């Protein structure tokens, strides 16, 4: 980038340009370095010579094709299921007088906090075909035989179900925010012109929220496609692979990083195309909804449907939160998770064991310190990139935006290997240190963080920033003094997103931790592989409680109460 400042303006040298330039370079290093190694490996053979043979293997060997097709089908199903649940729920929470809607919103956020691998393990306790609590209950209530089961979580349907449980909050959060941002005067206008409730919903609310709906579906799809945790817990016992577990298996000895890299590139391609399609769709319409003037919307009265709506919301919460947490709590007090919780069987053994286990304290310390650092660095980076891209005030903005969103397509495990290859050699040997995990988490969470902040910025009319620029503030000052405060809620939400994301992350972590940088997620995964459900339950519950506490604190930062920061000014 080159800036040719006229001599008259030299005195007002814009410090923001070098700062932003440096961040651009950092982004390149974060994303391009591991991607570069990935590409290098995808197109070389074991001797380091150029070859396309890896791709021939990937697209001709059924051992790879099957996981590819299966993953596609599963991801589409997860996206559809997530939208089907999240869309009505978001509307009910954001726009109607459904009872306890605030609580439902808190609970959805909570189910977003749950790491998918933990949710998958909880659902194992609930719906394993023979020992699952729900199946036991069914057999007991209906007098069925021992092997006569209602649910089998170790199936593709079971996997879709569990992944949708922990992907739908992404769609929900995006949609609920979008619906809330629709100015009431637009709906009033619809009513005045004679549009009924459903016409308004269809002609105003739906088109206004369509971008968020698509973005949400896309994120759910990508989450499902690139997720490792839940498939590792549920698919392997069922005897099938999805693409992430297949790639992971290629890193077991004898390692085949060339094939793994080649298997990862199609995922990258699919995602880039999808993101481009989304950008194209959104780019054709203006969605500026927060300007200097607009009005609050009034909740829609559901009448006699209120309690039906609440029952629906409660059912969703039961499946994603209440039942799994109850199962974890129950299992934490038993030596054998499927035993009935009686006075006789009740034990604090698991709690005592975890308490006296030195690794668990170390893992908790590592997890939270790295999580806090990742959230802070990641939110700052995403804000800068998003403000550059959204305002096009910078020559390479589109490139930066593409760079920031590209990691979404890299399965964590492959990014883990990319980072492993990049940072196990001079000049920067970071393997074995917490820094490599920080890099991984910031890179992995950057796309979601970026998209969230970009969406917030796109709905913020540039007139406010332009005013500041006119009064002489440079870009950085505008970002800090005008833009950031205006989208403060989104920034805090993004911070929480990254923090939670770092806590939930498993697939890159698995490649990057050593004994000295062990995280709780790895500890839980290790214990799952040896079948210690009681110990996992204790670890998982502690992780959840501490995470809720951190997120709760973040939301109580003065002046940033949920929703308070972005409420349009009343005119």
């Amino acid at each position, binding site marked *: 980038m080159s800036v040719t400042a006229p001599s008259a303006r030299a005195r007002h040298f814009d410090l923001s340009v070098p700062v932003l330039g440096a961040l651009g370079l950092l982004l390149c290093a974060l994303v391009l370095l591991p991607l570069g190694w990935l590409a290098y490996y995808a197109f070389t053979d*074991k001797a380091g010579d150029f070859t396309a043979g890896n791709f021939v293997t990937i697209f001709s060997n059924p*051992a790879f094709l099957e996981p590819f097709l299966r993953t596609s089908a599963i991801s589409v199903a997860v996206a559809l299921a997530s939208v089907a649940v999240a869309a009505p729920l978001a509307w009910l929470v954001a726009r109607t007088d459904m009872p306890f809607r605030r609580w439902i919103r808190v609970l959805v956020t909570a189910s977003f906090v749950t790491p998918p691998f933990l949710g998958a393990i909880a659902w194992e306790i609930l719906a*394993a*075909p*023979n*020992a699952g609590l729900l199946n036991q209950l069914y057999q007991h209530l209906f007098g069925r035989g*021992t*092997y006569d089961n209602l649910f089998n979580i*170790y199936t593709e349907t079971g996997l879709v179900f569990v992944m949708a449980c922990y992907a739908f909050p992404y769609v929900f959060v995006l949609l609920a925010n979008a619906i809330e941002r629709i100015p009431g005067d637009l709906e009033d206008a619809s009513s005045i012109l004679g549009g009924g409730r459903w016409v308004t919903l269809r002609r105003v609310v739906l088109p206004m929220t369509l971008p968020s709906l698509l973005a949400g579906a896309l994120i759910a799809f990508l989450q499902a496609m690139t997720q490792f945790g839940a498939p590792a817990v549920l698919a*392997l*016992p*069922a*005897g*099938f*692979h999805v693409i992430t*577990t297949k790639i992971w*298996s290629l*890193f*077991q*000895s*004898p*390692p085949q*990083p060339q094939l793994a890299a080649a298997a990862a590139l199609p995922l990258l391609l699919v995602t880039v195309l999808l993101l481009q399609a989304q950008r194209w769709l959104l780019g054709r319409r203006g969605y500026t909804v927060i300007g200097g003037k607009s009005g609050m919307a009034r909740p829609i009265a559901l009448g006699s449907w209120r309690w039906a709506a609440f029952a629906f919301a409660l059912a969703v919460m039961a499946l994603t939160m209440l039942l799994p947490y109850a199962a974890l709590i129950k299992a934490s007090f038993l*030596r*054998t*998770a*499927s035993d009935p919780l009686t006075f006789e069987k009740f034990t604090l053994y698991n709690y005592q*064991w975890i308490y006296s*286990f*030195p*690794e668990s304290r170390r893992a908790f310390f590592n997890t939270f310190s790295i999580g806090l650092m990742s959230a802070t660095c990641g939110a700052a980076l995403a804000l800068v990139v998003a403000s550059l891209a959204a305002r096009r005030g910078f020559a390479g903005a589109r490139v930066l935006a593409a760079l920031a969103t590209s990691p979404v397509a890299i399965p964590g495990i492959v990014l883990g290997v990319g980072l*492993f*290859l990049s940072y*196990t*050699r001079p000049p920067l*040997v970071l*393997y*074995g240190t917490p820094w490599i995990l920080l890099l991984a988490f910031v890179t992995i969470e950057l796309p979601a963080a970026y998209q969230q902040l970009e969406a917030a910025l796109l709905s913020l009319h540039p007139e406010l920033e332009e005013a500041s620029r006119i009064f002489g503030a440079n870009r950085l000052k505008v970002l800090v003094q005008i833009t950031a405060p205006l989208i403060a809620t989104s920034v805090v939400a993004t911070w929480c997103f990254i923090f939670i994301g770092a806590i939930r992350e498993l697939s890159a972590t698995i490649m990057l931790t*050593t*004994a*000295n940088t*062990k995280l709780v997620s790895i500890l839980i995964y*290790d*214990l799952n*592989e*040896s*079948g*210690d*459900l009681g110990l996992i339950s204790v670890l998982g519950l502690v992780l959840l409680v501490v995470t809720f506490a951190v997120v709760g604190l973040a939301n109580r930062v003065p002046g940033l109460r949920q929703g308070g920061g972005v409420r349009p000014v009343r005119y």
Partner: protein
Amino acid sequence: MLRFLKRFGILPVFVAALFLAPLSASRAAAPAPSPVTPALVAAATKEGSVTFYTSIDLQVAEALAKAFQDKYSGITVQVERSGAERIYQRITQEYDSKIHNVDVVDSSDAANLVDYKKNGWLAAYVPADVGKWPARQRDPDGFFASDRATLSVIGYNTKLIQPGDAPKSYADLLDPKWKDKIVKAHPSYSGNIMTATYELSKAPGLGWPYLQKLGQQQIMQVQSSTEPPKKLALGERPVMFDGNEYNALMLIDTQAPIAIVYPTEGTPLVSGAAGVMKDGPHPNAARLFINYLFSVEGQQLLVTTGELRSFNPGITEPAGRVPLSKIKVFTADPADQEKAVDDIKQKYSEYFGT
């Protein structure tokens, strides 16, 4: 990274040639067993900690660490437990990145130790008690020895299956009535299962044709050999094809409804091995710890708390356990097994799907 990537290429041959020549010359010069001296304790205490990579069940490994810490206050044991093949992968990765984190390594796949020895990563060190070990259970050059043994057994849930209906042999498990009823661990994760699979693949009348048929039984695939007994206890599956005898015995000690079957064809005996890393960060604490691991005290803990089998003649067998001498066993030579590892992983994923 290079060796890690090329471990199964031409490099091992080269490395083996490089190391085996001097090793075979020094065969007679295996170091004499070293007792624990006050000087060793003092030096170990000064180092303050020891890192132990192991595939022993986590709760057993932690009990061992705690007993050591109680005896030698001032030295903490950091336990890194995972499946043997996962530990192997981790150590190879770390050493290729010049990260020397591990002091003492234990693996239920003794072939891993053969490989570390070939790479020149192990120190020749014979703990005092290993002098009493049977010759077949110790490395002739003094780099490692069997620190434990267990059997990979068949088992069943006694609430779900009456003893009369229980399988007696591997052949029984091919009966269609066991379809969808069997849980089984994975050789790409577990060293025990790797060894057991190697032994079964060599067993007369069984071999790969048998395992291929077993792959049609819609088994539930878990990872660690510590897990199938736990799945039996849950009642998730009524039968386990393989899994650690020691975990099954430990669960039976807690009244879990499990019974063990030593199959009529023979039961795979799996000897785990342990050694000291040459470039570990705490060489003295490592030597003190491995001495404790092989001592009567350490071995008795593995046998009593962990229900493992031991080669230390000084230990007392728990009452009521079937003595090893009464069980027909399959055994493996770690060096031969090391050559078959890749083939086993490939065939297994072909026949069992993961």
